[in-house]
């Protein structure tokens, strides 16, 4: 075969393969219509418990998304159940991978890990209040406003900051009541107004299943929701909710 022709064939094959892989990845992501967080009309699902969030995302068939989570905690505790780790050969070979959390073992401590392991979220941005960020990461940097810490979970990136990320991809947004542990409603509204984020599924979580969240924090969450104004359509989800989420 003529080398010039072969070169063209190789370039085409290699380029097509690379583009196809990229498209395969992007097409695996679920997305619905997104709006600007700062000014757009939003539907906010208010969840009573953190574990409700996994169900909400499951019902919305969320897959391969980026999550922006505002809260004080990581909710990413690894499954250290002894029976899961000390399995014998027969069990492993019979049951295949056993690293994924079953529905019964999802709690406020690990619901984000459950969403991660089920491929609902592929990467996450944790946004802490400035005070919580400073306490958690014990930073000596005078100016922490531009600091983002990048970590990874078995190769998948997680970002930790005290401000919203600068990304053009529509994201899932979850505001946990624990965010208001060291922040107030005005500060929250300020970062929302200044944000350029596009969001589609927005959840506000009261975290009633978390013993580390106070009633005062939940009240502030409610106030923030009210202060966001008439552009917000609220749906309640949970045990005491009158109906589930709309599609």
């Amino acid at each position: 075969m003529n080398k010039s022709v072969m070169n063209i064939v190789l370039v085409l094959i290699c380029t097509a393969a690379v583009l196809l892989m990229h498209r395969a990845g992007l097409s695996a992501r679920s997305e619905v219509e997104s709006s600007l967080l700062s000014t757009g009309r939003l539907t906010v699902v208010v969840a009573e418990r953190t574990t409700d969030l996994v169900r909400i995302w499951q019902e919305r068939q969320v897959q391969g998304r980026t999550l922006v989570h505002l809260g004080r905690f990581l909710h990413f505790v690894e499954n250290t159940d002894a029976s899961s780790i000390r399995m014998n050969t027969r069990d492993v070979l019979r049951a295949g991978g056993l690293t994924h959390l079953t529905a019964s073992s999802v709690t406020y401590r690990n619901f984000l890990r459950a969403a991660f392991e089920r491929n609902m979220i592929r990467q996450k941005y944790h946004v802490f209040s400035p005070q919580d960020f400073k306490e958690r990461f014990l930073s000596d940097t005078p100016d922490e406003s531009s600091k983002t810490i990048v970590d990874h979970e078995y190769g998948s990136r997680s970002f930790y900051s005290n401000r919203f990320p600068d990304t053009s991809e529509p994201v899932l947004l979850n505001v946990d009541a624990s965010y208001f542990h060291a922040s107030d409603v005005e500060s929250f509204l300020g970062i929302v107004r200044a944000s350029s984020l596009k969001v589609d599924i927005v959840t506000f979580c009261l975290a009633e299943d978390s013993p580390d969240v106070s009633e005062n924090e939940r009240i502030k969450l409610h106030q923030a929701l009210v202060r966001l104004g008439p552009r917000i359509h609220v749906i309640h989800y949970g045990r005491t909710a009158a109906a589930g989420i709309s599609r």
Partner: protein
Amino acid sequence: MTRLEELSGRYFIHCVIACTVLAALLRIYGLSDMPPLFDEIGTARDAFDYMDHGHLGRVMWQHPKLRSILVYEGLTVFGLNVWGLRFFSLVFSVMSIPLISLVSRKITGSSLAALLSAFLLCVDTVHIDFSRQAIQEVYMPFFVLSGILLVLAYRSTHKTLLLPLAGLFFGLGMAGKWYASFPLPVLALVLLLDAFQARGVSFRVRLNESIFIILSLCFLPFVIYLLTYFPWFYHRGYGLDEWFATQRIMYAENLVHQGFNRKIVEMQDHNQLLWFIRPVAFVDFMLAEGRPIVLIGMTNPFIWIPTIPAFFYLLYQAVFSKDWNKLLLPSLLLITYLPFAVAQRQVSVNSSLAVAPAVFMLVSQAAVILMGKTRRWNIAVAGWLILVILCAIPLYLLATGKGHDTILHHIIDFYRPMDE
């Protein structure tokens, strides 16, 4: 040509087949009685996690993913048992025997050196040890030797499809371990030099040839490597920019990685600078039927220690006889070993399988050259080969977990963790 060389040429195929059968027997013997190791259990979990869900896994997540793909296929096709688990390791390790003989014969022009290389790989106990595990180490000699063979075949025949095929094998090798790419610069350089030095050929033809070499041996292996991440893209929703970011994370981990189990780490010989100085070992431990089984894959000192003298001997031969083809094996050894030698972290001897094919071919070539000199050298080489075999016997018992109830338990105790 010596009598032995002549016989080797006449009965080459028969000897290669015999060596391959011996290799298969050595690797299969007692395998069904050997329950999966800790690493293999993790490998099986990772394989299902990767193929069904796209997760890189918990065990060795920082390594490329061909192992997960092949272990998954082995378990799916051949059943949820140790044979399904270890199928591809066995196949690749056994097929490496005829491959190394073909590559060695192509490089050295000597059937005797080729057969000797095949025999050394056949009885190498580090290779035997990892052939019996669902770990990706033994994939490397197979894919790298296949790639080298195809490159050499292209060099002599210029059949166009051979070079992209070589790129395919190197890409698959890289998808097992990154160090499968180490020989590529040397091979690409040899072909590029051939292209530029070709006489009676226009500049345009030489340019096309050079582009073809770079596409086949650089871009194509990269694309093949990328394609093995399809489950990760498809299940997890990642894009190409995120793939590059993850590769950087994996690279950062590989620069410092020292294993996940401290007890297992304590049992290892970690210093890669010792590979050519004294026997080094990789140790695995498990409990089966209430008793300990310790697997020790130890390098044969009668093969590895002569490597450095053989290296310089071949360099001398190349310069003295101005036969620059004799530089190929020393170059391959250098390019495969140097990255380990200068690595910032210590490297376990399982990674020596990246270097082993070059070692065996180089030592064999040196031995055959010496045999052709005098009768005394014939006897010396024969004596050396007997020492190799005598050493390989107890090493085989250690590699297959049979040494615990013998006098070899003193060696096993040497690798016991300090606080036990």
